[in-house]
């Protein structure tokens, strides 16, 4: 039993099931991120935890209490909305204490909670202002303050950073992370931004089409994605997915792929159970940072494979240079050091870290797990 249990929860609108048997157990103090493209059901799930939408079947319990049918205000949760949803006619202070007032908390206690939280978030000087007079970042803080004042069991965040500009978003991300480390409250956080998911969470649930595709720590999700959807959704640039044929030679398993000229190239794989796929096609997944120039390769890796290929495009990005080549008929992006000697049209020697490569079944698109 976790602190927040989502057991076999489904959601239907009429005959359309939008959420299929979702099962998640969240431990106290965990930071769970629900991530997925729009329409994947992540916000619906969050709203069901909040009690803003009914559960079609299954159970949700918070802190050992089944909350189905319990009014949102009695679930001891607090929510931060995408639009912040600050009450425009009230001052910041009134906004933050409105929930306490509604719950009949006496004024001195409300004042104290307000003082504590506004100090924590450094918004003391804003308390008498109206939301309309605040900047985006300040509104975001106030919205978080309004949630914090309640001292809830679970915090729910619904894409709280997507209305901010890029720089502020990064700052607030760090801020939220800091706050969580400090307060250790349980958080469920919805976002479509995979970077937010990876940086903030202790665990991630990647969702698509109403299913949880994979539930795991950021490292698990990133290094060992359960299927091609997870592999390509998480990480930027996305993981390269290349068709390859398995060849076994003297007990050594090779993946054969074609280079820019259509010539076959062999890469030795580390995954021995791929031998069962001898002569068949698989999809090989390689992250851009596992494809480097030889000098920039991970020196600790025991399976660095060299591959000569022609460069199609180079994209200098300041800290790195992204290099595109054609492999297995598809564009494959590698991440070189900024000063790597790569130019479009040239032949180049790539170093591929096969320890980090993953294999997918082309039919099911699921990962072929090593034994």
């Amino acid at each position, binding site marked *: 039993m976790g602190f927040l249990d989502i057991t076999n929860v489904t959601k239907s609108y009429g005959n359309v099931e939008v959420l299929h048997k979702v099962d998640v157990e969240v431990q106290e103090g965990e930071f769970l991120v629900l991530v997925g493209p729009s329409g994947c059901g992540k916000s619906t799930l969050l709203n069901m935890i909040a*009690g803003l939408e009914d559960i079609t079947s299954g159970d949700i319990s918070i802190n050992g209490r089944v909350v189905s049918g319990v009014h949102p*205000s009695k679930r001891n949760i607090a929510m931060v*909305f995408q639009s912040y949803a600050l*009450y425009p006619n009230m001052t910041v202070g009134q906004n933050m204490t409105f929930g306490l007032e509604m*719950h009949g908390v006496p004024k001195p206690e409300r004042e104290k909670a307000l003082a504590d939280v506004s100090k924590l978030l450094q918004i003391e000087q804003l308390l008498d202002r109206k939301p309309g007079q605040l900047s985006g970042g300040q509104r975001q803080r106030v919205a978080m303050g309004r949630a914090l004042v309640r001292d809830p069991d679970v915090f729910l965040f619904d894409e709280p950073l997507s209305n901010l500009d890029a720089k502020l978003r990064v700052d607030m991300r760090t801020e939220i992370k800091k706050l969580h480390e400090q307060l250790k409250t349980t958080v469920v956080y919805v976002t479509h931004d995979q970077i937010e998911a990876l940086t903030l969470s202790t665990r991630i649930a990647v969702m698509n089409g109403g299913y949880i595709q994979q539930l795991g720590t950021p490292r698990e999700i990133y290094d060992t994605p359960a299927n091609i959807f997870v592999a390509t959704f998480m990480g930027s640039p996305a993981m390269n997915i290349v068709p390859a044929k398995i060849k076994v030679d003297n007990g050594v398993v090779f993946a054969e792929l074609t280079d820019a000229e259509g010539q076959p190239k062999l890469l030795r794989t580390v995954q021995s159970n791929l031998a069962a796929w001898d002569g068949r096609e698989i999809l090989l997944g390689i992250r851009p940072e596992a494809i480097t120039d030889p000098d920039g390769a991970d020196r600790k890796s025991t399976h660095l494979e060299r591959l000569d290929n022609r460069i199609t495009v180079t994209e200098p990005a300041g800290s790195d240079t992204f290099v595109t080549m054609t492999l297995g008929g598809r564009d494959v992006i590698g991440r070189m050091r900024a000063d790597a000697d790569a130019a479009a049209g040239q032949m180049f020697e790539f170093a591929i870290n096969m320890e980090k490569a993953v294999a997918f079944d082309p039919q099911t698109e699921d990962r072929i797990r090593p034994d």
Partner: protein
Amino acid sequence: MSVATQDTAISTGKITRALIYLVLLLFALFYLLPLFVMVANSLKPLDEITGGNMLALPQTWTIEPWLAAWSTAQIGVEPTGLRPYFINSILMVVPAVAISTILGAINGYILTKWRFKGDNILFGLMLFSCFIPFQIVLIPMATVLGKIGLAGSIPGLILVHVVYGVGFTTLYYRNYYAAVPSELVRAAMIDGAGFFRIFWRILLPLSGPITVVSVIWQFTNVWNDFLFGASFGGTSQPMTVALNNLVQSSTGVKEYNVHFAGAILAALPTLIVYIVAGRYFVRGLMAGSVKG
């Protein structure tokens, strides 16, 4: 070439501008003329009017016609002046406007923030009520008022005007509240506010502009209504009916100066409402229609 065009643009600009102002001035005079005639003649003794010059300023200024219109003029058979009817109108218009505005606000709140099955059909039907001509409902309304015992009374008139007004006020508030994000209501729900608390503490404080629109609209309509007042007023007829009885009386001398004063008295409250709240009116109408 561009210089040349600009040059001509400036010179024609001056001429057209002068023409525009001239036309506007003429229109303004044209529209102000009736008001001038009314005010000027209401401040003259009667013999100056019957003497023939309606457009002249008074030679002897007098407020006698105003006093007569207000308290001693013959309305129908009673020499009461317009005062009791003015009071009737106030007693009718204030509750009618207040009740229809409050109902419209609550309806708008429910139709946008507490959606239910068939809410759009219900709203469509309420909108439909805006297009029903008064004359059609006279007889059914008379039956209903008679059955519930409100015929010929001010509460009866209030009921009629509320029923007729609620379609409009619902339309205003619904369109206005449609622009208010639903996340506000959700946040308030999580904060523990109930149905009326959310309305009272969150939605209503945002409703200033649209309330002005609703109040002006309802006030003007209810105050100016003649048909319902004449049909259902009974012994407590509103100002408009009394004004008609004053002006249309067919015996005795026609006291035009008193009639003018009476007509201005009848128009004064709506005029005041417009002057006081008018600049919010346009703003509120825009807010309601454009964002909705």
